[in-house]
């Protein structure tokens, strides 16, 4: 196993809200190996994006990261000064956002935005920065790059903008790219192109990717390892093959079950019953307990990540009580 580029341990981010303390990131630990892609999967509101923002230290106020460690190349990002952190952002770690419509400044030319990291971190001259910017645009497959360099965002299609966004994120050759739902706002054909682009660029530039998505098929296409998040915590961690072959956690299982089958024609889609818990009031014990069809006495105690086969971890007592798994105890619908 290659060395970990980024090692997140016990990360906790809180918000003071009128309804009390909200903990959308509640003790998250995982690592991203050098040159690999890790998929971070979960429903909307489970804390995936905030985990990413916590790593970048860009959690919007009043949110704050209160404990944990984010070790990037063995250096704890959470203890850096703001100035040192700015050096890291864009140069070592950069980010691709979900909405290409809103993640580019509408009143700035595409080119000026793409070269921003180059100018900021490498102090490149205008000319040099321009050359590299055009080069980046070519690299992400934008035709007529030297002309498009002077376009404004509204002159580009969604897919093009996302390409431009990728060009901006990669312009300094970062070691880690955090892609926060990079294809969610795009239609399916463009999605495939963007994923393909990410894959080729990764092969070319050798960076690690943290791919945040709620789309299991996207993860299947790109990720080497998968981390499943539920209600601010990690419920399962495994290599992509293992996870898809044998999901251990009932939540992951539920996610796979709720995908529409391709062959069998179904009247209704399977759903995981119940609601994602409110981050101000997590249920006691296992957070998934109120929605889980396997629930039993032991679930009153919250399980840590338990080791199954190989490198497969899941936060569920069933990993140990393998017998119970066979038949769900209570079948409520």
């Amino acid at each position, binding site marked *: 196993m290659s060395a970990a580029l980024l090692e997140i341990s016990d990360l906790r981010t809180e918000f003071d809200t009128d309804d009390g303390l909200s903990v959308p990131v509640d003790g998250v630990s995982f690592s991203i190996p050098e040159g690999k892609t890790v998929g971070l999967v979960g429903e909307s509101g489970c804390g995936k994006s905030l985990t990413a*923002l916590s790593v*970048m230290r*860009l959690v*919007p*106020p009043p949110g704050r990261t209160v404990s944990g460690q984010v070790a990037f190349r063995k250096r704890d990002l959470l203890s850096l000064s703001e100035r040192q952190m*700015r*050096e*890291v*952002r*864009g*140069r070592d770690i*950069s*980010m691709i*956002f*979900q*909405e290409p419509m*809103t*993640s*580019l*400044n*509408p*009143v*700035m*030319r595409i080119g000026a935005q793409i070269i*921003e*990291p180059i100018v*900021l*971190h490498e102090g490149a001259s205008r000319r040099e920065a321009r050359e590299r910017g055009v080069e980046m645009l070519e690299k992400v497959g934008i035709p*007529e790059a*030297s*002309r498009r360099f*002077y*376009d*404004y965002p*509204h*002159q580009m299609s969604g897919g093009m903008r996302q390409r431009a*966004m990728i060009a*901006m*994120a990669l312009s*300094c050759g970062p070691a880690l790219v955090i892609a926060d739902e990079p294809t969610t706002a795009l239609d399916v054909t463009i999605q495939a192109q963007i994923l393909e682009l990410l894959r080729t660029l990764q092969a070319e530039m050798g960076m690690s990717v943290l791919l945040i998505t709620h789309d299991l098929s996207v993860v299947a296409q790109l990720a080497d390892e998968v981390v499943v998040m539920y209600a601010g915590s990690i419920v399962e961690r495994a290599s992509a093959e293992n996870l898809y072959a044998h999901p251990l956690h009932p939540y992951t299982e539920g996610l796979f079950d709720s995908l529409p089958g391709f062959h069998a024609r179904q009247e209704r889609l399977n759903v995981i019953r119940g609601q994602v818990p409110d981050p101000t009031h997590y249920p006691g014990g296992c957070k998934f307990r109120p929605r889980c069809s396997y629930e039993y006495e032991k679930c009153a105690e919250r399980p840590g990540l338990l080791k199954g086969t190989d490198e497969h971890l899941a936060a569920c007592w069933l990993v140990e009580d393998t017998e119970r798994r066979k038949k769900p105890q209570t079948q409520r619908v």
Partner: protein
Amino acid sequence: MEEVVLARKPRSPLRLAMRRLKRHKTAMAGLFVLVALYLSALFADFIAPYSFDDELRGNSHAPPSKIHFVDAEGKFHLQPFVYGVSFEFDEFHERVFAEDKTKRYPIKLFVRGDEHKLLWVFPTDIHLIGVDKPARLYLMGADSRGRDLFSRILYGGRISLSVGLVGVTVSFLLGLTVGGIAGYFGGWVDSALMRMCEMIMIIPGFYLMLALRAAFPPTLPSTSVYVMIVLIMSFIGWAGLARVVRGMVLSIASKDYVTAAKAVGGKDIIIIFKHVLPNTLSYVIVSLTLSIPGYILGESALSLLGLGIQDPQASWGNLLSDAMHVTEIQFHPWMLIPGAFIFVTVMAFNFLGDGLRDAFDPRMEVGRG
């Protein structure tokens, strides 16, 4: 290597708005009037027949010169001309002017007159129009000291028109910076700055202006008075803008592109000026245009009360102060002409501002399909 040159310009949001503005007739009319006024102020010393302080006491309150084409013998002249004037007193001891029809004084172009420096640089004595001495050309009449009102209005425009531009620039720089910082950083910085703005806003503007004026010595050289007026009015004007900008920045700062700019390692202050504030530009340009009249009127009000620009320097406000008495208006109605200039300027700015607002309004695009 071949490079294909395409005739397609990148269309910035600003350029698109300007194109819409060109279709807006009243706004373009306003713009045209303003350009004419500002040019006339810029070249005041060249266009004006006389210097602003060139007085001729004998011609006190001389009415506007009548411009003739036909002389006393009924002969037509292609070149317009005026007659010299002389006066006698009537029963109210008011001067009654009469034309002396024995000698014609043709109105000439590029005549020699008072010395001046064109654009503050080139010394010359050429004026655009004028008549030979001893006659005088009073296009808009004369004031109590026999100075040409038209010339004084042109010189006054230099002050009255520029006070708006300079004042607005100062107060907008202040308002944008304060509003940008307050909205972007939020928290206690925001609260502190906004309470400060409210402190300024709760004091009625005109009294604040008078109070601030009282802080300066009553007699100041005219340049210091000018600077003082600009500072006072900018000080009053920035708070309202800062509040609106803060609100806009608050919403812009939560946009993804601001997070994206942070995520590439941008410094906060640079993000504010490079990413956040340019997005308020459409509002700011409109608001800027619409608030210039306030500065022009403010200067006029101060000068009208004798607290602003002092005689012999001219501004539209202190020219109007000569027309404060009913008798003045009754006997010398031309003394009100500076008021017409203020009126036209303010209207023109409002037309232009309305046009700009329509041009920047994104809903317009939906309407046009």
